[in-house]
């Protein structure tokens, strides 16, 4: 079911874009990632709005007072929070729904990129079973060369005058993941949230950086493009949020 609903449409769409772009898989990843981000944009906006509303609630006097008053009674605190959410018309699940729907799409996108690159026999064999009848098998294997990278291999830039290779994409993924986390997670008055935001800002860049360093550079390219678009979305949302009400 996963293959039928998510993976096959994504892989065949990716290959369709690849064929339209003169069989350049790097550009196919970039365009495909942008299209998927565009399609899921309403969900992302809903999730960001939900986060912002939550931030405002957390900054309110009523919220702070109930935190203090019921700090030893978690059950009561939870009830009071739900009352507050109801009073201000906030649905705590509204942010989660977007995230839940987006999560399989993100996984599917990642898997589609890796499966289409098919750098090993098992992956290529599996790919042959996922192609639609109208997808030309002549597109396989995809041309994995993009700029200085082999998209099926971890990326390193070799410069003649340097004694070591530079993992350019890894560095870019670490920087953009950090920036995206910063931009899409607004400052919170809540100490616990602040701690978690700080940890997120530290661990996520390192984790994705590790993946970018050790896995196929096609995946690192996807991380980088996805991060750039996330930063752009975060920037726009932040500007909207900071715009004074007219």
């Amino acid at each position: 079911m996963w293959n039928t609903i998510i993976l096959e449409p994504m892989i065949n769409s990716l290959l369709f874009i690849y064929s339209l772009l003169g069989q350049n898989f790097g550009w196919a990843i970039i365009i495909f990632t942008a299209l998927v981000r565009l399609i899921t944009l309403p969900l992302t906006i809903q999730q960001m709005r939900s986060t912002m509303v939550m931030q405002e609630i957390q900054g309110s006097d009523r919220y702070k007072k109930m935190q203090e008053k019921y700090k030893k009674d978690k059950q009561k605190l939870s009830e009071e929070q739900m009352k507050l959410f109801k009073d201000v018309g906030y649905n705590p699940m509204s942010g989660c729904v977007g995230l839940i729907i987006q999560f399989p799409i993100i996984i599917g996108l990642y898997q589609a990129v890796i499966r289409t690159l098919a750098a090993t026999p098992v992956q290529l064999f599996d790919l042959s079973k996922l192609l639609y009848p109208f997808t030309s098998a002549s597109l396989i294997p995809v041309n994995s060369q993009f700029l200085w990278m082999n998209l099926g291999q971890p990326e390193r830039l070799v410069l003649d005058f340097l004694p070591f290779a530079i993992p350019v994409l890894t560095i870019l993924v670490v920087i953009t993941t950090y920036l995206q986390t910063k931009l899409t997670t607004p400052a919170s008055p809540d100490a616990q949230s602040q701690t978690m935001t700080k940890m997120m800002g530290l661990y996520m860049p390192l984790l994705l950086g590790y993946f970018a360093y050790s896995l196929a550079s096609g995946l690192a390219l996807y991380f980088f493009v996805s991060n750039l678009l996330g930063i752009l979305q975060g920037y726009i949302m932040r500007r909207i949020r900071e715009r004074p009400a007219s």
Partner: protein
Amino acid sequence: MSKAFFPSKKFFLPIILGLSALLLVGCTGRSIMAASSWPGLTVNEDVAYLAYNEYVRAVDLTSGREVWSYPPEADAKIAFYAPPAIGPDGTVVIGGYNNKVYALTLNDSFVNVLWSFEEATNRIIGGPVIIDDMVLVPSADERLYALDLETGDPVWDKPFEAQHALWSSPVIQDDRIYLASLDHHIYALDLETGREIWQANLSSTISDSPSLTEDLVFAGTFEGILFALNNSHGEVVWQFKADGAIWGSPAILDSVAFFADVSGTAYAIEIASGKELWRKELPGSSAASPTILEDRVYFISETGEVTAFLAENGDPVWPSSADMAGKLLTDSIPTEYGLLVPAMESECVVFSVDPSTGAARCIIEPK
């Protein structure tokens, strides 16, 4: 966020790591870190040479005992999947996913590295082939290397270079090498020099080695077309369209070519005309070449079955397919110990199937 709705910070990192692991594994339940190819198996006399994951192992088929394995200690950076090649003096040539080729010899139960070749720049996926005192090594770096069996030194002025990865073993007939590439081409090369004699563009990927008769070259493509080429100049003599992508090489018996496709259909095709003689449904997709034993043809299905048909008319030999727990993608090898069938994702690495009855037993267990 609310304390009541968010996990405490001590659980935060494990949750992030868990989600990331989920991202890697995905909902299909298979990690990209899993074995990336199927076992490579070669049998020489009573010894099976198995390349799978971190080790190449030599197993005595009479006792099931492991004679040796290489390397002595597993190295996460090295994996072996290409079927080993065995020289006349017992030298074992193996290629690794670390781009290197090793020639191993056995001295007093110790495995010595006679030489190693380290000029390839990508994985060795297809099995090396030994011809006289030369080893031919196909590499995913698009090159076919010809090495001296004794020293590992290059034999040709330069390796033959295709336009995409070489994932299958070259096939030798007379003084020519026939080679399939992921670049959609079949190449005929001069054995002595490595120079190209002809090339044929089949418009789609050819994953496995070509099969040969005296005057024809057969290759199946991802587009599901079985081509018969004239071996003098590479012209297409006929082509046959199958239902699905073709991975394994056709097997030839007298005047008939047998092959199976990814849709799970087995075919018998008349060599002279390309006419279909019979077709049969298999239990699952097939990536392996069929194996022929006397008047029978044995097909391997990915889903774990071996199915035997009479070559003449496609009648089933056994009441039902031999069933093994595992994923079967590798060619089987006929031996006096039965049909040896390598398996993935199984508690047994090599099964032995009785060609008469279809009874299966484990003959090589995982290390």
